[in-house]
């Protein structure tokens, strides 16, 4: 019990450095860990709506698309970030909850 977990480090030449490291941390703190309701409402249900963008960041675009979630195609926050190669599709909103099912 005296061994301290290190800060995570990718242990292969394929290490992609800081962005990947942040991705690893974000996907853990946003999608894992114990889920309990706080007093601030945004902390459970709302947060999971609001951070859909962030959750998409840690979930793949492909997975989201398979789930029928493609409103992000119109979202400047995401589309300006390198997803502009996505075809501009129709459909918006409505299905965000589905992402929470995983």
């Amino acid at each position, binding site marked *: 019990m005296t061994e301290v977990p290190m800060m995570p480090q990718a242990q292969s030449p394929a290490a992609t450095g800081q962005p990947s490291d942040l991705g690893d941390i*974000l996907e853990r*703190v946003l999608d894992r860990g*114990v889920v*309990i309701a706080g007093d*601030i409402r945004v902390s459970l*249900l709302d947060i999971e709506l609001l951070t859909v963008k962030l959750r998409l960041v840690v979930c793949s675009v492909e997975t989201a698309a398979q789930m029928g979630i493609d409103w992000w195609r119109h979202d400047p926050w995401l589309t300006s970030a390198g997803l502009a190669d996505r075809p501009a599709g129709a459909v918006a909103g409505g299905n965000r909850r589905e992402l929470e099912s995983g």
Partner: protein
Amino acid sequence: MSAADGLWLHALMRDPDPALLSGLTGVGGREVRAIPVAGLTAIVCPVDLGEFGEEPLRGNLENIGWVEAVARTHHQVAVELSRFGPVIPARLATIYLSDQSVVGLLTRCRTDLAAALERIGGRIEWGVKAYTASAPRQPRPAPAPGGNGAGTGTGADYLRRKRAALSARSDAAVAAADCAEKLHTKLAAVAQDARRHPPQSRRLNPRAASMVLNGSYLVDRGQGDRFAETVAELADGYGALDVELTGPWLPYSFATVPLPETLPETADG
């Protein structure tokens, strides 16, 4: 704690010596403190509701820079706490308005939380990601001259080359997915528990498009080196994959606790 403060929940653990927490700074920039209830302790940090209240939080969560800073601190505090015993990290942005609320949580959920602490005690999580191997592609042979005279075959040749390239890529992807399945099965067999997660996004991982495995493995603390060796050995055997090991992590992926009774009574605002 002033009226303008909330309590950011960092983690849950068995009662640590309060002296050990001294000097540990949480997400709000202030010292964390312990709220113990009968053998379980919530580690919280006072936060300014001007930044962490519902409305400001709503905006801040849309700001990736803010989220990054908070996420890194939240993670680091849990890592520090893990020096004193098993830790259940809370999901980001779990905020309470009073000590009483936290006491209520510990009281209501103690059985499940205690069981989770038991499950993850003495164990760590490793992350294993695998990508379709980025082997150098064979150069395509120059297309044979078309029989119909110069120029007319160009479009067809182009399409043929394109199709061949796509097919080679798709074969590689299928082989990689198959290997990833086997790799996960073998790793799960030597781990205490295992989870597969969706691949990461391109925004945070440039190689995400070729990610075929994003797995988490719960391993006894003393077996970490052995697990890493196993990963390396298996990776050698799968030429179709590039394998990456990360960790050790706190057992984020295994700290889930079924707590339906803690959902807010009214789900819609």
